[in-house]
C-alpha cells in the first residue's frame, strides 16, 4: 500500500472523494442541489446589479462628467440600448400578420390584443458556457418589475431565442433554443413536422427523423418555422434553416438546423406576455 505524507489521513482522502462523487451523482441524476445553486445565482446577480446601479454607475458618471469622451461613451451606450429596443418592436410589427393568425395568441391585431412586449436586459450570461457546454441559459432583468411566468417566448431583433423557465418580479431565467434540455416543435413549408431539441452548440438545434414513417420532404437550406403545436411558441415564425442532414442509420437521419436568432447580438430582449 502506498505510503502517504505525514499527517495525511487515508480515511479522510477516500471518504471526502466518495462524499463528493455521491453529491455529484445525486445532483446529476435528480437536480437535488438546484435550489442552492439558484439561491447563489440570484444572490450574486442581485449584489452585482445593486452595486452596478447604485455604486459603480454614479461614481463613473460623476467621474465621466468631467471628461467629454466619457459622456460621449455613455450617450453611445444609451443610444445602442434604445436602438435594440426599437429593433425588437420592429420585429414584432414585421411578424404582426403571423401572430394575428396564430391560434394560441388568439388576437385580431396587436393593438387590441393582450399580447404585450416586456423589454428586459441581460444581467448574467455565461458566454463561456454557451460556447463550450450543453447548458445555454441567461438571466434577464425586466425594465418594469413585473411577474413573469414560465413558458413565455423571448425574442431579440433576429427572432425567437428561447423561453422563460423560472423567475420572480425582478429576475428570470431563460432557456435558449440551443440548450440540450430544450424542445421546440417545428415544421417546413412541405408539411413536415418534427420536435427539435437543442444541440448544445450555439445557434444549432436538431431533429431526428424516422424515414420509415414517410418520405423525405426536406432539403438543405430549406426554411424552418415554428409549428405552434406545443402551445408556447407562435405558429409560423421563421426560426432558421436546414444546415446539415446526417445519416444516422439507413432509415434514420438527423437534421441540423441553423437558428436565425443569435443571443450574442444584443443586450436587450423582449418577452411576449
Amino acid at each position, binding site marked *: 500500500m502506498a*505510503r*502517504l505524507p505525514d499527517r*495525511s489521513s487515508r480515511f479522510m482522502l477516500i471518504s471526502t472523494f466518495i462524499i463528493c462523487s*455521491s453529491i*455529484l*451523482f445525486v445532483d446529476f441524476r435528480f437536480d437535488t442541489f438546484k435550489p442552492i445553486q439558484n439561491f447563489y445565482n440570484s444572490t450574486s446577480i442581485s449584489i452585482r446589479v445593486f452595486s452596478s446601479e447604485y455604486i459603480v454607475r454614479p461614481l463613473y458618471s460623476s467621474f465621466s462628467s468631467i471628461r467629454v469622451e466619457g459622456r460621449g461613451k455613455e450617450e453611445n451606450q444609451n443610444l445602442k440600448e434604445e436602438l435594440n429596443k426599437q429593433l425588437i418592436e420592429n420585429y414584432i410589427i414585421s411578424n404582426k400578420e403571423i401572430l394575428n393568425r396564430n391560434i394560441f395568441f388568439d388576437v385580431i391585431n396587436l393593438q387590441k390584443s393582450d399580447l404585450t412586449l416586456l423589454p428586459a436586459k441581460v444581467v448574467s450570461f455565461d458566454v*463561456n*458556457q454557451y460556447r463550450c457546454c*450543453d*447548458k445555454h441559459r441567461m438571466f434577464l432583468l425586466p425594465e418594469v418589475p413585473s411577474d413573469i411566468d414560465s413558458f413565455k417566448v423571448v425574442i431579440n431583433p433576429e427572432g425567437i431565442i428561447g423561453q422563460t423557465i423560472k423567475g420572480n418580479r425582478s429576475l428570470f431565467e431563460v432557456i435558449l433554443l440551443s440548450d440540450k434540455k430544450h424542445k421546440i416543435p417545428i415544421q417546413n413549408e412541405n408539411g413536415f413536422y418534427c420536435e427539435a431539441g437543442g444541440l448544445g452548440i450555439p445557434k444549432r438545434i436538431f431533429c431526428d427523423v424516422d424515414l420509415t414513417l414517410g418520405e423525405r420532404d426536406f432539403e438543405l437550406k430549406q426554411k424552418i418555422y415554428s409549428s405552434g403545436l406545443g402551445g408556447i411558441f407562435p405558429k409560423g415564425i421563421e426560426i432558421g434553416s436546414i444546415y446539415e442532414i446526417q445519416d444516422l442509420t439507413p432509415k434514420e437521419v438527423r437534421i441540423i438546423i441553423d437558428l436565425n436568432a443569435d443571443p450574442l447580438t444584443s443586450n436587450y430582449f423582449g418577452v411576449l406576455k
Partner: protein
Amino acid sequence: MKLTELLFLTVIFLLFCFIDSQINLYLYDFFIISNITYLFLCYLCFRNPQKINSLFGAYIGFIIDLHQNVFFGLHATLFTLSILLINYNYFRLRMFSSLQITLAFSFFTAFFVGFKSIILTTMNFQYLVVFISFFSAFITYLFVPSLGKFLIKKTKL
C-alpha cells in the same frame, strides 16, 4: 489552516477561475482550454499536502461549482480525486524532475478536461480538446510554480 489563509486562497482560486473563463473565451475556437486553477491546486497540494488536503479541495471545488453554475460536486470530485492521487504518489512524485512533474500534472489536466467535457458537453465531446489540453497544461505549468511562489510568499503555506 488559518481562516485568513483560507480566505486568501479562496479569493486567489476565484480570481484564477475568472482568468480561466476570460482566456477560454478567446481560445475555445482553437480547442484550447485554460486550466490555471487546476494546475495551481496541483502545485499547492504537491508543495504542502498537509494543508492542501482533500477537505480543502472539496471546499474550493464546491465554491467553483456554485460560481460556474455547473453540476454541484463536479469540481469537488475531480479536485479531491487529484489530491488523493497526489497524496498516494507523493514520494514517487518527489523523486521526479521538474519536467516529469510537469508531464504528470499535464496528464492529470487532460483527464480533468476529459471528465468535465463528458459531463458538461455530452453531445459534443471532442477528443481534440482533451489532446490539446495536455500541451496547453504543459506550457501553463512552466509558469505556475513561479506564480504560486509569488502569490503565497507572505503566507506560510
